């Protein structure tokens, strides 16, 4: 079975890359390949220009899609263990563990066993396990899945801080507004192939489509601008959402609208990341 084919993307230190794709597109497989958990038949993975091997991986942090910790092991011991597995000295690992627990609001639970924690708190320990050793590359598989809005905000802050520290951050998510908010770059994968990669703004501008939003007052119920290359996406009360080819002149749409009704609001912009995503992985 081939999960990935022609799947090239890169991320630089201090940058955050959103790794997007429909379910089953191969995101998890690609992330596992970074950690040698699956071995690609062809292609290469490199870090700082050198192939990624066991030594490099010790400087990476990973949060697998399938979360898991040792249930009966105390939280602090567990984090210390993972820190040491990444080559930290015992003292440094202990200090980092307690610092992260403090930062993630688990300062009082260091001696608790993981199975005694709530699901949300287990997620935080999992995050700490990925971050403890100050990784150069941070790979998180669906880190926002199942988090409440407060936890989402905390995690977004942590990821921004990690990038500011100089780490390269890669995470996958289906929450595209979040990705747009946090990431400078995205890689969109579909059927194991990268269909788009690069700066979010540039990708949006490069799209062949534009979104047009109209708020009209007093327009006929079924009114549409008679401009070729413009299609209706959604109509609600007097609000219309349209998608237009890039070469359609927005002025013409606006003029048509003004002829039919009073225009309260008009906007013209490249598609959002969510729209871009749907456009690219259209099935």
């Amino acid at each position, binding site marked *: 079975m081939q999960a990935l084919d022609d799947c090239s993307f890169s991320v630089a230190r201090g940058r955050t890359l959103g790794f997007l794709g429909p379910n089953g597109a191969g995101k998890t497989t690609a992330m596992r390949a970074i950690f040698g958990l*699956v071995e690609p038949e062809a292609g290469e993975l490199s870090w700082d220009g050198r192939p990624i091997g066991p030594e490099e991986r010790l400087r990476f942090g990973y949060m697998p899609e*399938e979360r898991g910790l040792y249930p009966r092991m105390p939280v602090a011991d567990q984090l210390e263990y993972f820190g*040491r597995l990444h080559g930290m000295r015992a003292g440094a690992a202990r200090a980092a563990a307690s610092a992260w627990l403090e930062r993630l609001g688990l300062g009082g639970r260091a001696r608790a066993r993981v199975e005694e924690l709530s699901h949300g708190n287990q997620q935080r320990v999992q995050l700490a396990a990925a971050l403890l050793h100050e990784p150069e590359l941070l790979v998180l598989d669906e880190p926002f899945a199942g988090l409440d809005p407060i936890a989402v905000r905390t995690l977004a802050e942590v990821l921004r801080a990690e990038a500011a520290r100089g780490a390269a951050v890669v995470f996958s998510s289906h929450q595209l507004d979040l990705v747009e908010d946090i990431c400078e770059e995205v890689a969109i994968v579909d059927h194991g192939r990268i269909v788009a990669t690069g700066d979010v703004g540039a990708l949006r501008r490069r799209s062949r489509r534009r979104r047009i939003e109209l708020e009209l007052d007093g327009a006929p119920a079924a009114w549409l601008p008679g401009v070729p290359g413009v299609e209706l996406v959604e109509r609600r009360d007097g609000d219309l959402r349209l998608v237009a080819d890039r070469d359609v002149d927005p002025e013409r749409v606006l003029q048509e609208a003004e002829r039919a009704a009073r225009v309260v609001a008009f906007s013209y912009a490249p598609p959002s990341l969510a729209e871009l995503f749907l456009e690219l992985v259209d099935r």
Partner: protein
Amino acid sequence: MSGRQAIALVARRELRERLRSRAFLLSTVLMLALVGGSVALGRMVETERTYGVAVVAPAPSGLGSALQRAAAPFDARVRLRPVASAAAGREELAAKRVDALLLLRDDRLVFRSNVEARLAAIADTAVRALRRHLPPTAELATATLEPPDAEATDAATAVAYAGSLLLFMSLAVYGQWVLTGVVEEKNNRVVELVLSAVRPRHLLAGKVIGIGLLGLGQLALVAGLAASLLAAGAFDAPASLGGNLVLVVPWFALGFALYAVAYAAAGALAGTQQDASSVGQQVTYTMLAAYFLGYVAVAADAEGTLAHVLTVVPLSAPLVLPARSALVGVPLWEHALAVVLVLASIHALVRLAGRVYARGLLHTGPRLGVRAAWRTGQKT
């Protein structure tokens, strides 16, 4: 970080986490109690015995009654058989008509081939009591007519079979620990995080070494207790057998390494806990077969061809060698060959299991065949 450091970290975690568990403490206490209990039980089932003792005529008066008195606390009786001379006495002894020859003039108690500890104690007590009127007080020196023969004594047989049973049970119990440990790690998914930093064969090695050290410690404690009880004469058996019992410990290490790696691979291939027990059974049955084959072969003829072969075959060597060593003694070259072959098998099995392990650990769903896992497994 070197592989050795990673292995040490994994092993340390296994040791620490398991030492915390009550189950380990309980099983240690239980095994120690079993060894202590067997001493008490041995005492209870010791049967009354009548010993025949030849003595050069004329026997001193009172010797017969002194012997009876000394024998009473041992639940034994002594039948005196006067003989004409020491030579005649040796003939009687050689012909198995008596158990020992008492040579009062030389202060010697002569046995045929093996010193009977109980009888030696009885005769010693009796003679000393008799001579209280005739100073200086003398003790008897024991001697044997022939060099200690190769034929096993009851005690050696007991040590041999108890030793290999102990080995078999320890291997099965600790092997099962490895199996469940692997399956747990796989089922609660922590293995993916661990493998992002540790190579599969290092995780495998650390796990086997950690649990193995624990088993070794427990077994050393139990075998050590048994050996010191032997040395203290608690079992009415030659103290030298304690050495054979201690042989169980290094062979546990070798046997465990071999079978635990197989258990670990089985755990990695299993999809679920139920699956794991059925895959684990295949390993257990293999070991059971090796154990029984060894038992039957050694019981039938400890010097037979089959027994010799099973002593060096890696699967059965750990279970057969200590037993044969207690029964008939095993030449050094056979020890060496067995060790070399077992080490070679461990090396090969670790390579095989490491590859299967890596593939199996991240595989969920139906059980993975060994062949499929090997084919798609990565070089670790």
